[in-house]
Every structure is written in C-alpha cells, then in structure tokens.
C-alpha cells in the first residue's frame, strides 16, 4: 500500500507511522488538533519516562554494590559499613516479618469492619465510623511514629512482651525476651493500624457490590445473617478482597517513617518477635544521610532498588486482581 500524502482533512489510510498510532485518530486532520494531541501525548509520556529514569538512575547508583556482591547480596546476613560487608537479608527479613505480622492483625480486623459497616451498622453509626476510618488514612506516617514511640511501644513492652516473654519465652523462641519494646512486633502492630483503613475501604466497596439478589436468595432459604454473609456474600467478594489485602501489603512494604521509629534499628535477622530489627525502608532512612563511602552508598541504593522491585510486583498483582473484580461486577 502506498502511503497517502499528508493532506489536512484527508483520512489517513494504509501504513500508519508510530507517532500517528500514538495519537487519537481525530488528531490526524486539523493542525491545531494535531499539536494539541501531541502536547497531551507528551504529558502522558512524561510518567513512563520518569519511571524509567528512576529505575535507571537507582540501578546505576546500585551498580558498584551489585558488581561487588552479586546475588549473594540478597542472602548476605552481615551488614557492616565499617568493614565494608553488606548483605541485605536482615532488612528483607525485617520487612517481610513486620508486613506479614501487620497483615495477620489487619486482615481479620479490616474484613470484620467492612462486614460490620455493610451488613450490620445502622446509618447513624456507619457514617461516623466510616469517617473515622478516612481520618485514620489521612494521618501522616510520622505522627503515627511519634505516637507509637511514646505510647504504643511502652504499652506493648509492659503489657504484652514482658509478661509473655517471662511466661513462655524460654520454650517458644518466637516470644523470647528480652522485651525491648522497639521490635518487629511493634513494627507489625503500627503497620497494621496504618493499613486497616485501606484494606477495609476497598473491602467495603467490594462487599457492597455483591448483588442484593444473592443475599435475598440465601435468606429466603432460611440462612442466618451470618451464614448469608460468610457463605454467600464473602465468597462472591473474595477476589476483590484479596486484591485489597495485597494492596495493603504493598502499602505496608513501602512504609518508612512509622516503622523506622519503632522497629529498633538493629541490622540483624531478628530471632524473636520481641527483638529489634530493621526494614529496607528503615535502614535507608537511618543510614543514607551519613553514608560515608561509595560502597556503602551503592549498597543502600541496591536496597532501594530491591524495595522498589518488590513493591512494583506486589502492587501490580493487586491492581490486576482488583481489575478482574471490576470486570466480574458487571453481572
């Protein structure tokens, strides 16, 4: 096919160049519209370009460390800036442990809250609680951290960690003392508090979208309210709820300030829930400003890259699941 000569107002047929494929079809006529479409396209492209730039820049900065330690970096347990030994495992462990603990606490609470708000609460109660949840989502991370340092951690230490450690700490390694207060557990708890609003907000939407007809069908068959909720409504909403949970996980993984302030900042793989640890985000917050030599810096950059990669994967999975649910909701 011969390429059609460029004429304003003539519909282009035949082979389309890459640029014209980028632009909406209407832009191929009018000059003003074409420049408008190009400008819009430029704005749109700014985001992926920036994204690529971030990946490249952080990647380049990490290179010295990657070159030096290779894949062993991920498995290395020693983090010693003075000696020039860098291994990321303590931070990967801390991140995963605190996030998992956060999920363990937050998921039942969030789903319970979502069920309460959609199925049970009368309007006069549901509105303020929903508003309260939104408030929780708006509180800056550093304020959570402040409260956690001075209120949550001391309470955790004296009311939970010390008694439990004294009682079963010797037998159950997970709860071994000494009870520091600032610990993986504290990190998990504050993270849980922070991600509950997100998980429950999405869960609530998903639950509310379950068709009334499904609920009526269950009730008309003689199911109790709980049976209806647990056996019919929840299963219907499961894909969306899983998406919500993974979104919450993504949030927890990237959380920095609050967790830096309560996790104790010890660059070792913690052996007990009550022991201090560190996360990928917290080590960056703590050490980056004072990173002395280039290797230290590169190692930190590598951790940043790793964190970046993990959150990308988790968030993508979450988006995909939520997107799948929105397709299904068209029933």
């Amino acid at each position, binding site marked *: 096919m011969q390429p059609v000569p460029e004429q304003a107002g003539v519909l282009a047929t035949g082979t389309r160049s890459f640029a014209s494929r980028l632009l909406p079809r209407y832009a191929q006529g009018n000059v003003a519209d074409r420049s408008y479409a190009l400008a819009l396209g430029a704005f749109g492209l700014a985001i992926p370009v920036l994204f690529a730039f971030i990946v490249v820049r952080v990647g380049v900065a990490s290179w010295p460390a990657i070159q030096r330690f290779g894949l062993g970096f991920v498995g290395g347990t020693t983090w010693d800036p003075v000696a020039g030994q860098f291994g990321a495992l303590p931070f990967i462990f801390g991140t995963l442990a605190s996030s998992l603990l956060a999920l363990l606490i937050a998921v039942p609470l969030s789903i319970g809250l979502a069920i309460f708000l959609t199925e049970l609460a009368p309007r006069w109660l549901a509105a303020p609680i929903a508003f309260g949840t939104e408030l929780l989502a708006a509180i800056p991370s*550093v304020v959570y951290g402040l409260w956690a340092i001075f209120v949550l951690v001391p309470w955790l230490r004296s009311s939970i960690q010390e008694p439990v450690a004294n009682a079963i700490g010797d037998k159950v390694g997970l709860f071994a003392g000494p009870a520091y207060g600032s610990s993986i557990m504290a990190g998990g708890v504050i993270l849980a508090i922070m991600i509950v609003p997100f998980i429950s907000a999405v869960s609530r939407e998903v639950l509310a979208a379950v068709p009334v007809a499904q609920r009526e069908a269950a009730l008309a068959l003689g199911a109790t309210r709980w049976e209806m909720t647990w056996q019919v409504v929840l299963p219907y909403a499961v894909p969306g709820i899983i998406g919500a949970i993974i979104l919450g996980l993504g949030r927890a993984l990237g959380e920095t300030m609050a967790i830096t*302030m309560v996790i104790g900042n010890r660059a070792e793989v913690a052996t007990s829930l009550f022991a201090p640890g560190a996360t990928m985000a917290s080590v960056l917050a703590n050490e980056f400003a004072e990173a002395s030599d280039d290797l230290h810096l590169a190692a930190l950059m590598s951790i940043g890259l790793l964190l970046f990669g993990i959150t990308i994967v988790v968030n993508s999975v979450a988006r995909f699941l939520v997107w799948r649910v929105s397709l299904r909701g068209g029933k």
Partner: protein
Amino acid sequence: MTAPQHAAPLDPLSFRDRRRRISSRVWLALTGVAAALTVLPLLLIFFHLLRAGLGSLNPEFFTSVPAPVGQPGGGVGNGVLGTFLLVGLAGAMGLPVAIGAGVYLAEAEGGPMANGIRFITDVMNGIPSIVIGIFVWAWVVVAMGGFSAFAGGVALAIMLLPMVTRTTEEMVRLVPREMKEGALALGFTRWRTTLGVVLPAARSGILTGVLIALARIAGETAPLLFTAFGNPFWSAGLGEPIAALPVQIFQYAISPFEEQHKQAWAASLLLIALVLAMNLAARFLIRSPYRSR
C-alpha cells in the same frame, strides 16, 4: 416423596437451629468488636496529641525557629513556612504535568499506549516514598552539590504526579458524553472542547483531587530527608536546605530531650490540623454535580 407436613409450630427451635442463631449473633457481634478496635487507635492518637501537645501551642511556637539544642522555647515557624513552600513548589512543578497526563488518559481511553501509561501510573502510586527520596538525591542533590528546597519540591512533585493524574482522569471521564459531543457538533475543535467545555465542567472534581493529593504530600517525611534535609533556621532560598514540619517532628521525636518531645507533639497537632483542613476543604467546600456522594 411428598412434602412433609410440618406439624410442629414455628417455635421451639431444635438444638441445631438454636446453635445457629447464637453463632450468628456471636460472629456479628465480633465484627462490631473489630470495628471498635479499628477506631480505637484514632481516639487514642487524638487524645494523646491533645494532651501532650496542646500545652505547647503558643504564638511563639508558630513564629519562631527552633531553640538551640536542649534549650526550652522556640518553635516550628520555619517548618510551617517550609511545608507551605515545598507544597507550593511541588504543586507548581507537578500539577500541570499531572493534569495534562490525566486529560490525555481520559481522552485516549483505551489502546495499548494509554493502558500502559495508566498501568505505570498506578505502579508509581505505590513506590515507597523513600525510594523517590534517594532517586531525587541521586539526580538533583548530587547535581546541585547540596540539599535544597528545590530538590524537596521535585521529590514531592514526583509523589504528586501519579495521584493527581489518576484523579484527574476519573473526573474528566465523569463529564457527560453529551456535553462533549454537543460542543463538537457545534464545530468546536478538539482542544477547544477540552479546554473550554470539558475541563471547566470537571473543575471542582479535579480541584478536589488536587487538594487531597496536596494534603497527602504535606504530611510526607521520607522524600524530604535527603533532599530538603531540614534547616534549623529560616530558609535562605530555593537552593538551600529548608525545614519542613514533618521532618522537624521526626527529628524531635527521636531526640533525647524531653522538651523537644513536647514540641514534637505540638507540631504534630499542627500538621494534622493542616492536613485535615485541606482534606475537609476538598470534600465539603468544593461541590460538584458530577461527584457521587
């Protein structure tokens, strides 16, 4: 098999059914407990904020810079100003691009290019703020030779970008098709339709999204740690380090001095008031016919 004749009256319940009824009530009550447990931290946080912070709120607190380390008095005036400056800077840099990108996505609708950009935008929404911080450090701070307000603004702008892009897209999409088609049918060019008809219609929704995003970045600390860095004095200029309220809170919180802890609480009160004010303004002051309530 014929339908059984239920000779028994509607009551009494069999053991099994009684158990089902109790079980239903118990589980539903537990969801109420879950709800209470999730709201509890909110109440506690506000309680402690007020108790520990109210006392330190005085005019001096708003207007002066921090006192020398360990000394009483002083305030977070420079932090408040810094926060405003940084948010303004971020907005100036990020909003035009974000709104433009949002309009692009709304107009392009489908297609692999737009879908790809949309996906990347969503992914960027999830980037840990500290990663953005170290990126901007590597890109701007190193190039400029030092920490600066400008770098802080860039970091916050990068955080702002994906947020506002998505909300803008959603709001523009909400504008009824008929409005756009009406203008086009009258012979308006595409760009005139968008800028003159569609955007004004979506204006309040977009503004809401912008305010909420600005409130979000006003509370961010991590991206500023290695860019704006903080400054115990009033800002000297865009090329110099600058204080910000969240950063000051962080520094005070981890310091060993009781006096600074008290100021951290007070500064938190201030920050929350600021963030909440922006959020509430977004929701209640801006009314739009297209927003679903």
